[in-house]
């Protein structure tokens, strides 16, 4: 829809109504993110406007020894390990799925994607019972495994998508020149699909870093992750410490978004260069 010199007044009104509505939707999307940042610099102890004064007090709170720092540490232990696991398993599987057709392939693909579909609470309760039986309840290992399961579909999907544009003649060329399949994979395939692997990994990392339902069920206070700490913070005493941690996490999302955009540009460039 665009405004032309010959547009009728009704079209003009409609045009500006439409633009105005879109602006409101964008405002709706951004306002929670924007509102919480100033509150983290509040010198008061309530999450309300107007701010009583400026202070970095709450940043000091979350970064001095205590539950916030512990939970941040736990998240920084669990998320990278879960991401690595998801990336390794997911990349292998995506490469396999693109290698040949085999019976039951669509069923397997559905299985690999399913952790993304099944409601989290069902995953959480299922893992709670199962991990209790095999002794993984309240352990870092259990949490890492659970988050790897949740992250795997993202890696499979992104690597799969990257492989759709991959020219397999390169693999044949490598093989015909006598390279071992592993060498072909690491020197020819992997460098080209790395943007897909990395963006899948970022999704998996963000999933683990934001996941609270499964963690609430299978982790004890010792393994308390950052989302768990935020959850109990919101539930029990909502203080500007939450806003401070939220600001840090928003900065992290901006970083993720930038890296994601960079990866997208890079994979697009590769496609054009070919």
């Amino acid at each position, binding site marked *: 829809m665009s405004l032309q010199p010959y547009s009728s007044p009704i079209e003009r009104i409609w045009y500006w109504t439409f633009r105005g509505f879109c602006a409101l939707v964008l405002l709706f999307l951004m306002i929670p993110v924007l509102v919480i940042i100033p509150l983290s610099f509040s010198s008061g102890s309530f999450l309300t406007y107007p701010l009583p004064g400026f202070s970095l007090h709450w940043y000091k709170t979350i970064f001095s020894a205590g539950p916030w720092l512990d939970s941040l540490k736990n998240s920084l232990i669990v998320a990278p390990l879960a991401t690595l696991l998801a990336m390794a398993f997911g990349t*292998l599987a995506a490469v396999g799925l693109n290698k*040949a057709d085999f019976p039951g392939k669509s069923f397997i693909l559905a299985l690999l994607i399913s952790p993304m579909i099944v409601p989290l609470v069902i*995953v959480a309760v299922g893992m709670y019972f199962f991990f209790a039986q095999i002794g993984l309840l309240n352990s870092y290992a259990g949490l890492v495994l659970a988050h790897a399961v949740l992250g795997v579909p993202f890696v499979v999907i992104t690597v799969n998508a990257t492989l759709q544009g991959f020219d397999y003649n390169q693999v044949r060329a490598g093989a015909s020149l006598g390279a071992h399949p592993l060498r072909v994979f690491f020197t020819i395939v992997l460098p080209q699909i790395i943007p897909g692997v990395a963006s899948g990994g970022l999704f998996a990392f*963000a999933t683990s870093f934001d996941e609270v339902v499964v963690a609430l069920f299978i982790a004890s206070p010792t393994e308390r992750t950052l989302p768990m700490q935020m959850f109990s913070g919101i539930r029990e005493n909502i203080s500007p410490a939450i806003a401070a941690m*939220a600001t840090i996490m928003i900065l992290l999302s901006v970083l993720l978004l930038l890296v994601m955009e960079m990866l997208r540009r890079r994979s697009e460039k590769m496609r054009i260069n070919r």
Partner: protein
Amino acid sequence: MTSALAMSQPAISEKVPGLKAQLRRAERLRKLKAIALVAPLAIFLVIAFVIPISNMLWRSVDNSEVMQVMPETARLLTEWDGKDLPSEAVFSVFAQELRDSRTGGGLGRIGRRLNYEDPTFRTLLTQTLRTLPATTEKTWSETLQSIHPRWSETDTWLALQRAAPATTDRYLLAALDLQRGSDGSIERIDENQRVYQQVFVRTLVIAGGVTLICLLMGFPLAYLLATLPTSQSNLLMIFVLLPFWTSLLVRTAAWIVLLQSGGLVNTTLMTLGLIESPLQLVFNRIGVFFAMVHILLPFMILPLYSVMKGISPVYQRAATSLGAHPFAAFWQIYVPQTLSGVAAGTILVFIMAIGYYITPALVGGPSDQMVSYFVAYYTNTTNNWGMAAALGTFLLIATLLLYLVYHKLVNQKQLIRN
């Protein structure tokens, strides 16, 4: 690609004997390699995901408590006709097995299970155990009946009989507000005890409402993003992607800050003089809608945007040049082309919405909790795992059915594009 290779070969393979077999072997090897690459993840998911969930679903029909703790009693009771009191054999085996149940936590397990039949059953068992002698000179039926008069009622034994089989449909029925009547037929439970139908309806209403609002807000914005020049739309896309990448809990906390009675929305409205006292906007349905729409809106905008980006503007222009009113051209020419995106976004948002737990738990009131909340509640708070599993089963079935529809639609879209 592999099939193309195989198809181009017949002409050669007729001339060179054995080549066909070699190609077949090579093809088989490729397949095996492909399977070997997928296998680690498939096995990992089966162990860490499929087995735990199947395990949990099994609990919705699992009724093995009495059968495991009192195997002989359970076996004898299934043969009992339920008319007169059971035979002396049942009484004596029951007394024996009740005494044995004290070790190994068996008593707790059957007590919890039997309390679902009759809320006083656990007390009856512990009271009986306290005075149960190791041996008796009378018959066991007399002994038990003298300890507690309820052992002379057939209803007590009928309750035990109902709990005896290895599987039960009581949890699945209860999750739909149904029960087995005394004659075994399925009937609705008392009106004032019906809970779950309301919960399911509420879940569908909230998910449906959230989906509709997302569509109404997302469609115009996706249209704007798809029709603007790329440099501008990329900039505006950040407004969609930044919240998308922001932690769900951060956004939920932000909505509480915005909507609470001393929050920004209420203060603004009061400063403007639109309202006199703060509105209750959070910890009720309004708060749930605000937070859920905000979280799910990007999932509506992104598929819509990707479909709209691929729609050529020439058809709409052709319609207008042929004399169609711009609105008619938009509605009759443009909108039908977006339907695959609308369907994909709608089902995606709906699937995600019906499973929501955290957001309603934080910004909703007691009457805004959805099915997931009750699954968590029965698991953590009351340890009624059968009930948690039954509600979870229905939630999972609904999700998977919707996903099947989504899958069909998205595949069709790809077919059309090809």
